């Protein structure tokens, strides 16, 4: 290897200073373009966060800056319940967030979201991992056929076949249940494909060594293959969790009316359905609460997230 490659990383840093000086105007132009883009991208996040802090009148008049003046205002609903006006003065931010949790069972929605995404991921791994192992490392009659079936199924977006799936579930009487939210996603052909590609790179020797040590095939999967596949699994986990926490279409179809089963996006949709002027603040608070977990996780483990979300691009 030549020393050029050895010092490539160092070079990167040192040439910075030169170029900044030489191309500063050009660099500034690039930043200007990117900043305009960033402002547009951030606009709705700003609206969401800022309005979740503001009082109805501030929202209506578009005043109050980023977080509002936080001047207490009168909660009309509270007055209507017969309380004295003085007792019904509320601080906007507190009002918005307590209403978000109080008016609808938001905690329940969040819980449902967590249960559903977690179950989906675990079942996906449970089903996909052994299959991927068999496709990658075992020789058996019909393997090619099953693999081409996987390749074919990669073509099918589950959302697109929602209608027949819905009919099947309703014939089984399973609509409006956790099962309905989870079942269609239990099989992730993408997961199988991904894991298979990953296992192909695991040396056969490792598996043969495990067999020599007396492990059976089940033990090999969970004790040898699973640990080696952790990076791929982690990326897949992020991919899967993001997709299903944010999914709206499928819950919308199979959950009708039963609030106990609402996932966070459904809950927010319901909220919006009967929102009036006073409720914009709480609605934005709800939106903030729903969006926050993934955004925070993303900001903490950015690299992993980008890896996971773009996984599908790495075959």
């Amino acid at each position: 290897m030549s020393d050029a490659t050895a010092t490539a990383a160092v070079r990167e840093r040192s040439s910075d200073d030169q170029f900044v000086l030489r191309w500063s105007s050009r660099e500034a132009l690039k930043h200007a373009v990117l900043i305009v883009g960033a402002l547009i991208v951030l606009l709705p996040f700003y609206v969401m966060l800022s309005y979740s802090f503001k009082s109805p009148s501030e929202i209506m008049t578009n005043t109050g800056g980023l977080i509002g003046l936080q001047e207490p205002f009168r909660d009309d609903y509270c007055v209507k319940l017969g309380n004295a006006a003085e007792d019904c003065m509320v601080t906007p931010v507190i009002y918005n967030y307590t209403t978000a949790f109080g008016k609808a069972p938001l905690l329940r929605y969040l819980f449902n979201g967590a249960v559903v995404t977690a179950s989906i991921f675990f079942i996906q791994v449970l089903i996909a991992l052994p299959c991927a192992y068999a496709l990658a490392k075992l020789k058996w009659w019909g393997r090619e056929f099953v693999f081409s079936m996987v390749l074919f199924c990669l073509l099918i977006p589950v959302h697109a076949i929602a209608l027949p799936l819905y009919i099947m579930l309703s014939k089984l009487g399973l609509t409006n249940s956790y099962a309905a939210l989870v079942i269609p996603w239990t099989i992730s052909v993408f997961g199988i494909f991904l894991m298979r590609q990953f296992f192909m790179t695991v040396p056969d020797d490792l598996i043969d060594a495990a067999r020599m040590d007396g492990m059976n095939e089940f033990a090999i999967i969970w004790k040898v293959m699973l640990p080696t596949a952790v990076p791929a699994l982690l990326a897949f986990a992020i991919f899967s969790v993001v997709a299903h926490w944010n999914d709206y279409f499928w819950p919308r179809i199979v959950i009708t009316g039963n609030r106990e089963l609402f996932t966070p996006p459904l809950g927010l949709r319901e909220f919006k359905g009967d929102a009036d002027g006073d409720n914009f603040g709480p609605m934005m608070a709800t939106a903030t609460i729903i969006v926050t977990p993934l955004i925070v996780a993303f900001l903490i483990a950015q690299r992993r997230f980008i890896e996971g979300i773009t996984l599908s691009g790495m075959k």
Partner: protein
Amino acid sequence: MARSRAHVWFVAPAVTLMFVILILPILIAAVLSFTDYSLGNDGAQYVGLKNYERIFTRSTYEKMFIATFTYVGVVVPLSVGLGLGAALLINSLKRFGDLYKTIYFLPVMAALLAMAIVWEFALHPTIGIVNKTLATGCGTVLEHWAWYAQGCAKTFPLWLTDRNYAIWTVAFIGVWQGFGFNMVLYLAGLTSVPRELYQAAEMDGARTGWDRFRLVTWPMLGPTTVFVVTITCIRSFQVFDTVEAFYPQGGGPSKSVYVMMFAIYEKAIQQNLMGIGAAITVVFLGFVMFLTLMQRWLVERRVHYS
């Protein structure tokens, strides 16, 4: 060798589920598309090609195709182009590149439904921040722009409820949401371009950024582009969350935003017309599968280094 029959246990659950959850529904959709089936009515009539005939003749479905293809036609080139542009810009920056990357990727992470509701709010004709911001520009040089002057004189567009703007506004939100994803894929593609190729191009006399882009960057990003275009196509064909959030009934002003997924939802779930819903499903699957097969073909055709 007495290898166990373990593979049966490993593969059977996956194969069964693949068949029941992915393949069987296609067959069911295909069969139902020739009937007038509806849930609750057990007796389904065979109606031949009538459902398909409707899809390709009725003006409602013409609007559906127009809306869907307009959406796809706007979102795909814009979000791919902006994704590439952002990736190139960020990649050429000396610092703060990661910051922009993070910001542009945020919409990909956020629940689209939630963000749709926020956008609806921001685009509200009277209290929305967008039109309020536009109004502050009145009386400035911007008024030389006829469109702007008109907005100041009367009102700025109603965005989501004006039939002339609705589909474009929804498409804009689609671009807003999706281009960060493409940007990240392009950034990954850019890091895999060997540096020596750029140096070779310089030695060969490529003086301008455009020369380098034409000679090295664009060709080397070919596989990424094929993938990005396909996945963006498939995603934008499946647009639903924004449309349902803005127009729970009917698909927007004059059905101008009546996209296919919403049509399936409306016909089959809201109106219990399973036959026609199934027929749209079949047509939809046809599009998506065609696109993916195209992509696979293109990728296999252009393998550079072997």
